[in-house]
């Protein structure tokens, strides 16, 4: 796959961590923490909470490295998804807390003018890096924006609808079709086939 700067020995580090080899844990953390914090920070937009999520994710890694399946995902792919899931949970539990205190603010829904564009820029860069121009063409701007807000910001359909000023049904359709096209165009260039 195309993730940059991934040392070749992550798989063996992870295998040693699964055997409770502490000497392998720190190199695994050092090699991956900056990229993973970047992912968590995009979603949470809060440095303290993102670092907390990173810490919790690595506690999971230490305890559950044995469940890592090299045949299903590359080490970095597996790590990214642990971090993303934790960040998404933290984002949503934070919102639930704010809602239950009655002091519901619009912070979570309010999107500054450029906030929708920045995730889309990341998505475009990602596709460009992977040299899959076919995907750039296959996904129209609305689909790219919807996917980018969901992926990089952890937004759900209703958030995406508000951010892009569209009905929820339309936002759902952009996500759905965007995913269909992403799968097709990646499959066409031999990447991420099921």
């Amino acid at each position, binding site marked *: 796959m195309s*993730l940059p700067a991934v040392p070749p020995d992550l798989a063996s580090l992870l295998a040693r961590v699964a055997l409770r080899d502490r000497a392998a844990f720190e190199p695994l*953390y050092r090699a991956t923490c900056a990229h993973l914090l970047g992912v968590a920070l995009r979603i949470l937009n809060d440095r303290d909470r993102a670092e907390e999520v990173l810490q919790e994710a690595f*506690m999971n890694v*230490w305890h559950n490295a044995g469940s890592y399946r090299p045949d299903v*995902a590359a080490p970095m792919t597996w790590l990214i998804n642990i971090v993303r899931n934790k960040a998404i949970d933290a984002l949503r539990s934070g919102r639930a807390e704010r809602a239950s205190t009655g002091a519901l603010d619009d912070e979570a829904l309010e999107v500054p003018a450029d906030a929708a564009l920045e995730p889309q820029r990341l*998505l475009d860069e990602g596709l460009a890096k992977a040299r*899959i121009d076919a995907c750039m063409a296959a996904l129209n701007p609305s689909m790219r924006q919807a996917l980018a807000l969901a992926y*990089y910001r952890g937004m759900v359909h209703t958030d995406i609808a508000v951010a892009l000023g569209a009905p929820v049904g339309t936002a759902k359709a952009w*996500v759905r079709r965007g995913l269909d096209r992403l799968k097709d165009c990646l499959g066409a260039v031999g990447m991420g086939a099921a």
Partner: protein
Amino acid sequence: MNYLQPERLDRLAREYVLGTLVGGARRRFERVLAASPAALLAVGAWQRRFDVLAASVPPVQPREATWRGLEQRLFAPAAPAAPVAGKAGVGAWLGRLFGLRSLGGALAGVLLCLVVLRTQPGLVGLEPATGQLPQSYVGLLSDAHGKPAVLASSRRHGRQLTVKLLQPVGVPADRVAQLWALPRDGSAPFPIGVVPAVGTATLALPEASETLFFNVSRLAVTLEVAPASAGAAPGGPFVLIGPCVKLW
């Protein structure tokens, strides 16, 4: 609902990985994922596809405290966990213990509890729920044969020293066993209190442990004709001596 029908599985897997599968549906799918190899493979395929998007996220170097906190949480159960962002600590667990709401209704009761907690936390069984020992100074004094004789401990910010005799100390009838603190820099020992001949005792400290013991590396016992007063020097040889360490 049949989650394992391939098309349905693929739709759930992709929205799960993307994050747009929410609430109960997300939790249910996680349970399916734990039990179904087919679901795991479908999720894996989508995770690989999204790698393309993850690749463009700019890296952000975490603070060193995050690694140290992680190490402590995982590997140093006897030491207090380092807060990720300096927010935890005694105040934080007290806050969690009582909650902000209880302060409104029962302030007096809470204050009483706090007084009890400050003086005798063990009495009410309200230790931090971390399974970790509290921050303390601990001294272990041994006799001339190297056999442990006295265990002394005090909470870091406490004003009491608990002394436990691990073996009876032979104290002549006209003498007392005087405990001394020996500073790390070799300056003069200063008296702490009198150790009982057997059993356990709690000595009141003139100042907080942190102030008294911060620069103390050893504790020792001499046999004196009377309890030493502040500024006094040991009147005989050390019959017991041992290290004094910070337990955090």
